[in-house]
């Protein structure tokens, strides 16, 4: 194939938004990027700027107002529900309903796009599930019920479910909410490790800017006026982080790669 095949997820001149009472409301436009295999990409931006809308549009839940999205070189609109499920998996923010599902069963659900009408697992499916459990070191808790898991463990299990879906792209919506600082760092380093070892493209939205700067291969910055995507070090040197938030309260400190509260005079 052509050069495009090396990119798993591409967007060109994307305009996102939603329809309200038959009026199209645009949230952001001029979004263009091309993500490659094995990359960890963090999407950051202020609350309400449209991170979730962008992720939903990329997942195919929302339709874009303008522009195209390509998955593995093919327009996302040409994918059937089943094909899309084999190309892209998601980890949503928030908890899942309490049920008797065990860790292994949740991970096994990720095999649904591949199983027959009644969902029976083949040898390949079982091997894949085992591989995911080993990769994420879930062996000790594999028989726990979902309501017995801590927030950090649940996040790992939900990532495991997405991994067993065996897609080239995984999209996570704020995977670090509700976690303490240690588990935030742990989850993001795990994502980096998984992206590099499995050569999957992993895109996540987050508010942990300082951690993302240290761990991501690329970062997307979404603001009202602009969309930029680049390596974290380049984004620091060209001052992009300073435009993320209103400047009255906090400022970006390029030396430490984190935000500092302005001293009151």
């Amino acid at each position, binding site marked *: 194939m052509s050069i495009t095949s090396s990119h798993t997820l591409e967007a060109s001149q994307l305009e996102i938004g939603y329809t309200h009472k038959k009026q199209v409301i645009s949230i952001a436009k001029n979004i263009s990027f091309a993500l490659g295999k094995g990359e960890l990409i963090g999407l950051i931006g202020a609350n309400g700027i449209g991170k979730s809308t962008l992720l939903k549009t990329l*997942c195919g*839940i929302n339709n874009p107002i303008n522009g195209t999205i390509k998955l593995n070189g093919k327009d996302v609109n040409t994918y059937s*529900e*089943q094909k*899309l*499920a*084999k190309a*892209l*998996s*998601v980890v*949503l923010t928030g908890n*899942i*309903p*309490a*049920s*008797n*599902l065990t860790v292994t*069963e*949740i991970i096994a*659900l*990720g095999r*649904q*796009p591949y*199983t027959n*009408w*009644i*969902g029976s697992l083949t040898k390949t499916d079982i091997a894949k599930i085992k591989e995911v459990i080993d990769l994420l070191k879930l062996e000790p808790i594999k028989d726990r019920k979902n*309501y017995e898991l801590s927030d950090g463990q649940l996040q790992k299990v939900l990532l495991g*479910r997405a991994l067993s*879906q065996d897609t080239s792209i995984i999209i996570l919506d704020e995977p670090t909410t509700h976690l303490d600082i240690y588990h935030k760092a742990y989850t993001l380093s795990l994502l980096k490790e998984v992206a590099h070892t499995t050569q999957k493209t992993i895109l996540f939205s987050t508010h942990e800017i300082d951690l993302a700067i240290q761990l991501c291969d690329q970062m997307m910055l979404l603001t009202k006026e602009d969309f930029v995507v680049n390596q974290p070090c380049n984004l620091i040197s060209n001052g992009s982080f300073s435009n993320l938030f209103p400047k009255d309260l906090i400022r970006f400190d390029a030396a430490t790669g984190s935000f500092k509260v302005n001293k009151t005079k």
Partner: protein
Amino acid sequence: MPKAVSYKTIFLGLVVLLLAGMIIDISLGSVKIPFTEVFQIVTGQGSSKETWTHIVLQYRLPKTITAILTGFGLSVSGLLMQTLFRNPLAGPFVLGISSGASLGVAILVMGGSIMGFSFLSSSLSIAIGASIGSFIVLLAILIVARNIRDTMALLIIGLMFGSLTSAIVNILSYFASMEKLQQYVFWNLGSLGNLSWPEVGLFAAVIFIGIFFTLFTIKGLNALLLGEQYAISMGVSVKKIRLIVMISASLLAGSITAFAGPITFIGLAVPHITRLLFKSANHLILIPATMLTGSIVMLFCDSIAQLPGSQFTLPINAITAIIGSPMVIWLLLRKRKILL
């Protein structure tokens, strides 16, 4: 796999309980028939008394089969509703399907006399009235469901349909004649013993069609345990699953209400009992398991309703509630967590 073995053991235990329940249910009744005679009649060896053969074959056996079918249908439709709405309080009553059936019967029995014309209120016309009622409510819910994506909203709409229909029933009963009101009240108490063999055959056919449909929802329902968005992301057509579930649940709950009256508690409680018993969320296991548990509970309730040793038979609807509610409360208190 130690788990698979234990599932098998529980299933085996339930099958034994079901057989025992059937034997007890057939043996009990207002006429005392020795157990050995009952066994001989059922196995086709005849009996020393002609009337005993008639009672067992024409009355008790159809009633036992009706109890089993009712248990199958109500518990499965409850399980489907609970997973679809991811709400442990869901059941055929909550969706308003059973209330629709009640409304159909109320209009037929009480409405006719008020409007000045009278229908033949045989058991068959009651069955038709109930089926039309539940079908109309289902149709209304399906039309609303096309425009609403949120299942919580759908649940509330089902509840509203339920209160609306019961309000109409109340108005009808206010104006109805004493005789018609009594007829409706008796139907409302539920009865398993009113069906002839051809009616049992029709009932069984509808129940098995309804359960057959649910086989195609097993995979989708398992995915729905994680929520609708996850299910969609795994390639599940949630709309299709929702449609199949609603059709089969209304077939099951509608026909049961039509043939046996509005029987409460089973649809809500049996799925919870089954989940606690099997500690599983997999619908491949839960669907046959709730069918077994539901039929056992129905047989048990019906046996108690016979009031062994007396001439009286209590309304089945009261027994299901009296036995069921404390049982569910006890189970939940022990477990402290309501699961799907």
